[in-house]
């Protein structure tokens, strides 16, 4: 019977990580629904970008308050989860503070003290974030596009992180108090919990302290598993996906939009006076012509765009600098990504249910993202500049415009006029190309 703890622990551990792996695989599968895109060039620059932007948070600090607090939570949370190693070993083998036997007394004290300070910083960060988000009225965090789940999601995460850190400190305090009474061997140093909670805990009975230590330990452990599995349903996936997203980020100049190769071929053929327009297409040429220009649904987007949709933190830095959004238009780059993710999830569920995708009569275009939003974009790249993890909502907008124009001829009338002019007069206005040099003489 004495192993019952360890067995329960092991079951939870395996189930927790198993479920988590399952979620990750599902995300991976869904991302694979997109078109392949080659972003394997410039590897060293990609590693460097990921290190700087995702690990180094170089873009976060552009907004200093949020940036610093985020840094607390991020660094704190990551390092505190080194604890997880200790928890796992202790949990499986029934040891107590396993790392102390490896680290040695002095270093283990330093280690635990650091974790304590970080835990406190995380708590501070989380509390301030909660206040900012709910009471302080930062516009991008209180916009109505966040009503419902996105708002609750953000709050839940803050609450979970808060609870985890409190459990961590509680555990340490109980441990410390028991060490003071000589009931546990002396391991580690606990500057924060001993001063913050220590005075209260010193009134507790031995039994209650033992119980508290164990309970907080379990809570911390189960909490982490829960948190991990919660990620899949949350914008907090970014704590994992920010890394691949920055690695696969677009490294070209922001102004460079991709050229469709299939179109090039066709136009070269048109322009070539020697080409025989009636000639049978060369072997294999058919497959060169894409089934579709631009994007109507998630299947037409590329895999990096879909990865972006899962990575978006919904922080709204993009939307808060978007000229269209600032001036009251319907476009919000954040929503473009959120809706892409919603649609992607819907398609994923459809596949889970049916084994493969069965047409559900819906599309990303119109059912999720409207033309009005798409046409409001000035392609100014303010959103891509602002995004702390280098996501690219503009590329999705652009691909969907392509679909509207090239597949549906559904551009606004004035734009059709402009395009006709470009085609016929080589200028967006109705002037004659022969008059192009008239400015020199008037």
């Amino acid at each position, binding site marked *: 019977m004495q192993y019952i703890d360890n067995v329960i622990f092991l079951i939870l551990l395996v189930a927790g990580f198993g479920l988590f792996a399952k979620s990750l695989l599902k995300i991976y599968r869904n991302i694979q629904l997109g078109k392949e895109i080659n972003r394997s060039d410039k590897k060293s620059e990609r590693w460097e970008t990921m290190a700087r932007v995702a690990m180094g948070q170089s873009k976060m600090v552009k907004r200093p308050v949020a940036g610093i607090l985020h840094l607390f939570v991020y660094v704190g949370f990551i390092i505190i989860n080194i604890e997880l190693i200790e928890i796992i070993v202790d949990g499986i083998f029934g040891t107590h503070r396993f790392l102390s036997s490896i680290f040695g007394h002095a270093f283990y004290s330093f280690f635990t003290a650091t974790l304590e300070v970080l835990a406190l910083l995380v708590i501070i960060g989380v509390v301030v974030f909660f206040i900012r988000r709910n009471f302080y009225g930062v516009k991008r965090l209180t916009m109505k596009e966040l009503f419902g789940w996105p708002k609750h999601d953000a709050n839940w995460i803050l609450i979970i992180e808060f609870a985890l850190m409190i459990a961590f400190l509680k555990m340490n305090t109980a441990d410390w108090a028991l060490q003071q009474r000589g009931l546990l061997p002396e391991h580690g140093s606990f500057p924060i919990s001993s001063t913050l909670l220590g005075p209260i805990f010193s009134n507790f009975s031995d039994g209650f302290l033992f119980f508290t230590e164990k309970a907080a330990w379990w809570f911390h452990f189960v909490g982490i598993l829960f948190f991990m599995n919660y990620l899949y349903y949350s914008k907090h996936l970014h704590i994992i996906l920010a890394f691949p997203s920055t690695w696969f980020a677009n490294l070209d100049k922001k*102004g460079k939009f991709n050229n469709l190769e299939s*179109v090039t071929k066709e136009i070269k053929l048109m*322009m070539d006076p020697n080409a025989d327009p009636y000639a049978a297409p060369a072997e294999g040429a058919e497959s060169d012509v894409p089934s579709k220009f631009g994007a109507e649904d998630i299947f037409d987007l590329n895999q990096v765009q879909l990865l972006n949709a899962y990575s978006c933190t919904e922080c709204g830095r993009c939307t808060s600098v978007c000229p*269209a959004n600032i001036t009251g238009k319907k476009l919000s780059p954040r929503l473009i990504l959120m809706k892409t993710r919603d649609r992607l999830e819907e398609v994923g569920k459809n596949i889970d249910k049916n084994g493969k995708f069965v047409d559900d009569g819906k599309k990303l275009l119109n059912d999720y993202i409207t033309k009005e939003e798409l046409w409001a974009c000035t392609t100014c790249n303010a959103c891509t500049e602002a995004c702390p993890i280098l996501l690219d909502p503009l590329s999705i907008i*652009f691909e969907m*415009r392509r679909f509207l124009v090239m597949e549906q001829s559904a551009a606004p009338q004035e734009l059709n006029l402009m395009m006709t002019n470009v085609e016929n007069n080589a200028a*967006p*206005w109705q002037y004659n190309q022969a008059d192009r040099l008239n*400015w020199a003489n008037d």
Partner: protein
Amino acid sequence: MDFNIKTMAEYAAEGKAPEVLFWVGCAGSFDDRAKKITKAFCKILNKIGVEFGVLGQEESCTGDPAKRAGNEFVFQMMALTNIEVLNAYEVKKIVTACPHCFNTLKNEYPSLGGHFEVVHHTQFLKTLMEEGRLKIEGGAFKGKKITFHDPCYLGRANNEYEAPRILLEKLDAELVEMKRCKTNGLCCGAGGAQMFKEPEKGNKDINIERTEEALSFEPKVIATGCPFCNTMMTDGVKHFNKNEEVAVKDIVELLAEADDL
């Protein structure tokens, strides 16, 4: 006429090639306001003796507005035609006063077979200044407040924030920066083919929002580096009835004025 314009065809007939091709662009060729920018730039080049050619009737739209609107066919038709012409003249270096032309020629033409060195007119003039060929005396603008509106397609799209500012500083003016400048600049509202259509419904037009910000500094001049920004800001200034007090001018117009050209 106080400036000379020579076409690439004329140069070719003489068996010569100019130092640089000046890509005028559609706005610069046809829009009445933008034509003044074109001329100011030519005057400066003429004065300091930079040999440049234009394509004239052989120039077509780069295809930028069609591309941003989503029409890849029309874009590539323009691009491939232009590339053919440019390659026929063996053009090496292109300068343009329009950031949209600049961006397209520089970034989107290479994969279609058009490899040129492309510079924005502010970059070109900055280099000429550093080489000592262009001298800038700022007398006319001494101490006057100027604010610069970053064109998205020069700034964020291509990371060029310094060249326009370096030129403006030489005018001895008081350069005031808007809160939204450089990487945080706010679009004038014309990019992405918005110039050619009515804006979507909202509370405000983008150019009004931007002009409001610029005017809050009570500048004498709002400097621009893009013919489309110029139009948008000019309309904005008119909207606020400030067109008497505040001028909207391209940087080359300011430089030409400083030089009394």
